[in-house]
């Protein structure tokens, strides 16, 4: 009896960690885009949703397996991101009163537009991304690990590692970190903040859309799931501390685990309520995030 209970616990924790990897992939670019553009992008969940639909489209229209199509998804969404970023930058740096608030409303508008267009064109039917490259289940000591989830986790870890490598070992990455710390000083050092924020936003959009393909392969989705993933990404970055990249790793995995544990031991209906409760406590106790490196005020 105890052994079965332990097995369930281990299984739940592993499931949660695997999903948490994907949350890290969604949130890491989002956190950095916030650092550079100084705007919380409410469209983050819509990039996930659009990415998942791109996976469906690649299978249905092109006959290419969505997993093999991932690099193309990255390129497509990076290009879209390059188009959107200058608009956000323009609003954020405009001479309107309260530009940050306006930029927030702007991304909210983009998110609603994307959701409305997708709902109008594909309707409310749930879908999944079908892939044949990855299937089956890995068994280790009575623990089931679907290969697909493992692949998603590995994708998340690899892309996060690449992204971190870019941030910490290239000159452009140095410029990104400098800009996230202080825009005025960064531009005084000869950094083109506008071009740089376009670049970061493009990487972020591409990365998030790729994660969207994998999420779409693991869970079924509709054109309405955007806000749900936005909320999860928000949770991760608020817990990590807005703009803190290291905290995202901890917070993303924690969220995956929390969600899995609540679903198994309390009930799926209470996930959001408990997630919100935890978020509230974190804001109350440590607004700068778990590693206390974020930007609170």
């Amino acid at each position, binding site marked *: 009896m105890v052994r079965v209970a332990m097995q369930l616990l281990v299984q739940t924790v592993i499931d949660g960690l695997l999903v948490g990897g994907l949350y890290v992939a969604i949130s890491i670019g989002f956190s950095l885009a916030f650092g550079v553009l100084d705007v919380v992008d409410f469209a983050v969940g819509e990039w996930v949703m659009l990415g998942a639909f791109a996976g469906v489209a690649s299978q249905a229209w092109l006959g290419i397996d969505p997993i093999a199509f991932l690099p193309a998804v990255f390129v497509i969404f990076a290009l879209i991101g390059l188009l959107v970023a200058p608009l956000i930058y323009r609003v954020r740096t405009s001479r309107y009163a309260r530009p940050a608030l306006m930029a927030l409303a702007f991304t909210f508008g983009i998110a609603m537009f994307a959701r409305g267009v997708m709902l109008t064109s594909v309707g409310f039917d749930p879908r999944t991304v079908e892939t044949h490259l990855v299937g089956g289940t890995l068994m280790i000591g009575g623990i089931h690990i679907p290969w697909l989830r493992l692949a998603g986790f590995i994708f998340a870890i690899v892309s996060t590692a690449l992204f971190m490598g870019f941030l910490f070992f290239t000159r452009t990455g140095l410029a990104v970190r400098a800009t996230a710390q202080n825009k005025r000083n960064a531009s005084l050092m000869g950094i083109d903040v506008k071009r740089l924020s376009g670049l970061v936003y493009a990487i972020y959009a591409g990365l998030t859309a790729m994660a969207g393909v994998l999420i779409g392969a693991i869970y079924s989705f509709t054109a309405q799931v955007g806000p749900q993933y936005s*909320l999860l990404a*928000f949770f991760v970055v608020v817990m990590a501390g807005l703009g803190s990249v290291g905290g995202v790793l901890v917070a993303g995995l924690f969220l995956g685990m929390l969600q899995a544990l609540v679903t198994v031991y309390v009930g799926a209906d209470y996930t959001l309520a408990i997630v919100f409760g935890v978020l509230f406590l974190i804001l109350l106790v440590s607004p700068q995030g778990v590693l206390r490196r974020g930007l609170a005020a």
Partner: protein
Amino acid sequence: MMVQEVKPKRSAALSALSLIVIIAFLATLPLWTDDYWVRIWTGVAMWAGLAASWNIIGGYAGYISFGQVAFFGIGAYATAILMQPGLDWNFFLTLPVGAVVAGVFALIVGWPTLRLRGAYFAIATWALAEALTQIVNTVDFTGGSFGLSTPGNAETGFFYYAMLIASAAIYLIIFLLLERSRFGYKVKAVRDNEAAAQSLGINTTSVKLQAFVLSAALPAVLGGIDAYWITFINPQSVLAGDITDQMVVMSLVGGLGHLWGPAIGATVLYLSSTWLNAHFGSSTGYIAMIGALLALIVLFLPDGLVGLLPRVRNMRLVRQILRLPERPAGAAGPSVDTSGDRP
């Protein structure tokens, strides 16, 4: 930003006259139109009140709330629950209960988040609304996802006047508290430069919290009337995220932080959405439309439709597009120091 201008007397007379015409139009509406149009204008009145309540925290205090629907829903459920057989409360007595409960919720959410950057507040309010929807869907006393029905009352005119009076009262409260009192000046000072406001001895967190509680209690009253009006509520009808979206968009389209902006935005958008629904029967297209509209307004018309009126604000960009003459420098410039801008 809110530089008070000395208006000529003719302009004051003109505004008074147009106000009288609008009041006369609204007050006599049920006497000369059919039920269909009375119902539509009930909706206009409700949305004008909702958008105006959102405008208190979003426009006057400068903190965007993406979860305002939670308070509308709390009001609706308070009325519906208290009017259930067995409790049988009087309808009018349920409204203040909803307002108080919504205010308490606002206090709990606002207290930790209003000290932080505006982004935290936007996220927290949004999370509150999502979590509340899920809880209401789950627990028993709200009827779960099935919902609750309220004892029906068939008189269209009653609801029209109830909604109209509630919205008018909301406007009066906003006018007195935010346009004509020390509190209003404090709220605007905090919005325009929080550090400067603090240095003048204003308790900024407390001022923001008061504004948020006010902007939460008012929509709860409208939610209560709505629950009685539509006689059947469920999470999809009174806790849907679209309701917040519309409040935000209506305020922005009309004019953020302006007294009449939300009313103008609500009238224009509600009537056009009714028209769209009647002609195309698509509600998802409307989501795309208001999303695009929101983005375009932010890009090209950040002061909303009221910015188009003469003498309201200095709308440099719109004036350029419409080739209107620039106003003399120093009249009311957009030369606001935005370095203290926090959200």
